């Protein structure tokens, strides 16, 4: 078994309203920053042991499918690194 860190990034699907990001954007503008848009995402860093990077990725994808993301509103991506 090898030790991996799987990083799962969960973000709203394109087109789904993100009021928190919009509020954050406005606050940045109040601070004097100029920006065209702002998107937010959740990032989970999961330390796990697996036989291969593929297996670690598959495991993290199942975690995303079953809990970390809500398929109705979210897309997610998984990256795996040895740790």
């Amino acid at each position, binding site marked *: 078994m090898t030790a991996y860190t799987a990083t799962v990034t969960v973000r709203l699907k394109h087109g*789904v*309203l993100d009021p928190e990001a919009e509020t954050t954007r406005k606050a940045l503008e109040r601070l004097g920053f100029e920006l065209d848009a702002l998107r937010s995402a959740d990032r989970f860093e999961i330390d796990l042991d697996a036989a291969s990077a593929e297996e670690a990725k598959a495991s993290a994808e199942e975690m995303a499918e079953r*809990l*970390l993301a*809500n398929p*109705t509103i979210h897309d997610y991506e998984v990256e795996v690194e040895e740790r």
Partner: protein
Amino acid sequence: MTVAVVQFGGSNCDRDSVRALSHLGVDAERVWHEDGLPAETTGIVLPGGFSYGDYLRAGAMAARSPIMDEVRAAAEEGTPVLGVCNGAQIGCESGLVPGAFTTNRSARFQCERVHVRVENADTPWTDAYDAGDVLELPIAHGEGRFEIAAENYDRLEREDRILLRYCDADGDVTDAANPNGSTGNVAGVLGDRESVAVMMPHPERATLPDLDGTDGQGVLRGFRR
């Protein structure tokens, strides 16, 4: 018959639900989620609150607790299940009903009285009303915006599974009367069976006569069948 009001850590409308049901003559009791459903359960309320502190997403943790396997199995056998507010979020997260309730368009927690229009009066939850009736009910949520993929929304409409829509006092479904930006002004939906329903407004807070309005009684009477 006993309606089980499932109490998670952070539920806070469980007592209100029991009291409102008792007022209507429905035998109800609180059930701690770790204890599982009692054998004599004839109905289930998933009450409002902030189960698991709304960690990850509202309802996400409670939806994956072991008692929800029992709730889903009971629902499939026809046991009436009503999810209110956080219970509605749990219902979506657990797949009892389609869609998701997420952050309000305002990005704020909103605690106010709203109007909803009865869309389908041919369900246990609404047969005390007529289609088109306007109810005044309280809402209290930060994540009540109903989101659903377009094809699934079309299916809900086609199958007449939209229970309630936010409207103005005259019953007109307008954007101005939509408190949270919900798709199609949806305030409540049915699951695969009409015995399963979720809604963001609180019928149990509009049931006792001394609490300013009793428009929610009809919803809870769904358990009297």
